[in-house]
């Protein structure tokens, strides 16, 4: 134990299951946790929709809310939950010196303008001129900012006054993995004392679905748990809207503030294994092995996406280790893209703090009633990149 240990002192969560840590804990520890899904609005796709959110709770100014679309609002809101949970929100000095790493995709395009142009393209051959004509007259200037990846961080700076540093990582699940890994490395080395990280994803938008369907990844059959989508129509991915933010802090900094951490981030590992070469299950096994976890039975929170090849490989890797009991969080939240890994890490930290495991999230996951003083988290990307973390009791 050292003053530079990386501890989690704040968590903000939003998903179809609800808003905040407590809502998630109670939904996820129900006897039989149930997903909230909508299979009609985006049929043939199923999504896990956003819950009811009172944005005013975390974004006081209407003017600020208007400058954002749902993705940025969701991230800014959830960042506020994490800052609140850590007892940092509104503390000007702590926010001013706080670092930030956001894992971001892009914001929402204006679907109406896009559809207008697509429709007009059927009767026009001068599509280049058509584009200029429509884009110059139909695009709302503010929407550009709502689409910019780094403007989620920008809005968090404006709304919550976190201004120590601001970095936005991009790259799907890998961005969330790198955010956690870099944040932990910064704190461990003394480059940072306290840091906000996280990501948000708003799937209830056709363009977001399109990005994933271009790869044929969306699941088109009736809802199934994340492990059971092999062979079904589509690519296995059922998405959700949600966000996960964490406040990471050095143990010394947290103790000085009198905060009790959820857990210690003991080790983070990331990888970029070539999936078309060699045995991907072995790569996942090696990644988890590199965490040097205690040789005993453990709970593992998996952010498996459901996409066929990587999820099957992860399942092979996890099933091969009899000491692991895993929980596929994506069965219940849907796939939250950049937020996948932070979400898994958050759930691991909550199990440690509450000294209690989660029940099976879906049939086929084995019962676990052992200790939760060390819990693992994994995020194997739906298309590329993978990461894992070991969290231990503070």
């Amino acid at each position, binding site marked *: 134990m050292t003053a530079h240990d990386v501890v989690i002192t704040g968590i903000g969560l939003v998903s179809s299951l609800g808003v905040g840590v407590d809502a998630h804990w109670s939904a996820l520890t129900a006897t039989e946790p149930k997903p909230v899904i909508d299979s009609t609005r985006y049929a043939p796709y199923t999504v896990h929709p956003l819950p009811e959110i009172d944005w005013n709770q975390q974004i006081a100014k209407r003017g600020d809310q208007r400058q954002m679309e749902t993705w940025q609002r969701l991230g800014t809101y959830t960042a506020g939950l994490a800052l609140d949970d850590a007892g940092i929100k509104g503390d000007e000095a702590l926010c001013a010196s706080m670092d930030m790493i956001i894992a971001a995709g892009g914001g929402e395009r204006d679907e109406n303008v896009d559809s207008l142009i697509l*429709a007009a393209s059927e009767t026009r051959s001068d599509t*280049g001129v058509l584009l200029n004509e429509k*884009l110059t007259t139909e695009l709302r200037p503010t929407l550009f900012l709502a689409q*910019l990846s780094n403007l989620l961080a920008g809005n968090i700076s404006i709304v919550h006054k*976190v201004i120590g540093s601001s970095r936005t990582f991009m790259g799907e699940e890998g961005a969330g993995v790198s955010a956690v890994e870099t944040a932990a490395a*910064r704190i461990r080395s003394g*480059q940072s004392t306290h840091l906000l990280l996280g990501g948000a994803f708003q799937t209830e938008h056709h363009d977001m679905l*399109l990005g994933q369907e271009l790869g044929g990844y969306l699941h088109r059959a009736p809802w199934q748990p994340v492990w059971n989508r092999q062979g079904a129509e589509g690519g296995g991915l059922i998405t959700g809207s949600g966000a996960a933010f964490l406040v990471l802090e050095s143990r010394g900094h947290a103790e000085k503030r009198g905060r009790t951490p959820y857990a210690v981030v003991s080790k983070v590992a990331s990888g970029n294994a070539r999936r078309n070469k060699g045995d991907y299950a072995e790569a996942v096994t090696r990644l988890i092995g590199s965490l040097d976890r205690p040789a005993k039975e453990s709970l593992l929170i998996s952010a498996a996406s459901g996409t066929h090849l990587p999820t099957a490989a992860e399942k092979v890797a996890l099933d091969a280790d009899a000491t692991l009991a895993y929980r596929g969080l994506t069965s219940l939240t849907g796939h939250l893209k950049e937020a996948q890994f932070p979400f898994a890490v958050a759930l691991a930290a909550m199990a440690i703090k509450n000294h209690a495991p989660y029940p099976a999230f879906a049939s086929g996951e084995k019962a676990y009633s052992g200790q939760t003083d060390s819990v693992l988290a994994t995020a194997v990307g739906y298309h590329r990149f993978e990461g894992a973390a070991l969290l231990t009791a503070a």
Partner: protein
Amino acid sequence: MASRKDHLGRPVVAVTGIGIVTSLGVGKKDNWEALTAGRSGIHPITRFPVDHLNTTIAGTIDFLTSSSMGAAALTYELAETAALEAVDEAGFRGVDFDGPLFLAAPPVELGWADRLELYRKTKDGAGYDRLLASARGLNSLDLFESTQFGSIADRLSEKLGARGLPITLSTACASGATAIQLGVEAIRRGECERAISIGADGSATEEALIRFSLLSALSTNNEIPEKASKPFSRDRDGFVLAEGGAALVLESLEAAEARGAEILGILSGCGEHADDFHRTRSKPDGSPAIAAVRAALADAGFDTGRIDYVNAHGTSTPENDKMEHLSLASVFGERMRKIPISSNKSMIGHTLSAAGAVEAAFSLMTMREGVIPPTINYDQPDPAIELDVVPNTKREASVSAVLSNSFGFGGQNTCLVMAREPN
């Protein structure tokens, strides 16, 4: 022998490889010749029709294979071209680079040409439902990859034999500087002996141009394109959208010396500070930019007297240049009138996500060559901005340390301090 640890006991970070592509050409040699000759790379747009557009000029890169193949393809080629030049110079040609990769790149979306073609593939339905139906029928991952933010860095990583999960980042117009900062920090943490930091931006599409235009950020001086970007001039009226790429091989001085590599410069300090004032405007008192400059100097362990030259962010927008002057004058005081400061953007335009990396590369060359590139188009000085902008003609000067500024939308402020030699 120079110290291999800095003032805080951290490994000194050297630069051992540099690669550059801008609208002025491919490679350090061509770029440096053009830049020091005061030549502009800004020209009329030919990539797409300019009907209905207020701005019809840009610093697009039209001479690469991917120039007409969309933002993702061109951004990749720019990044790869710059990275290969840098690793070649550093001596890692043909071997695995074996260090982490940090890529500053624009957020990419499905391009309009692809979007329209996808729409045409199916005849049923309309709008996004029809796009989704077409997407279900694709049997190639090419379009998918063009929308994945991790894809360019992943390809580069494989090409270069970089280590681990490559990081793609965006801090808007400060991205290139952030990529360098992340590399420096990784070496200082002792995670690696070397890293490659790349900034690349090939996203000058019609939609990008229109979006910036709607924010009134772009120059509309279309008549004489090469004269449109005029940083610090009284009649400046916006930046010129441009493309480019640059890469630096960063290496601990100790590792670089141990393998006998040529040291091209030292990355002495990085500083940043976010702005909580507004999404596109800076806090009127300049305090975030001031804090970023001071943080970079403090990180380098330099007092203001050590800086011989400032490579300005100098976008040529009314707001940026005024704010940059205010910030520098606050930090450097009276001496700021005498420190040469020039804007590469007067010639290459604003290369957005690449700018911080491109300008760091030029800053390092400025020190090595002993020549300061000019700020061109400086015909009508802004009387409110008293700076020695190295007007219109290059200047020979011994430059031992440079400050390079990068400021971006979303309150991003990142500054780099570089030195010619180790302390």
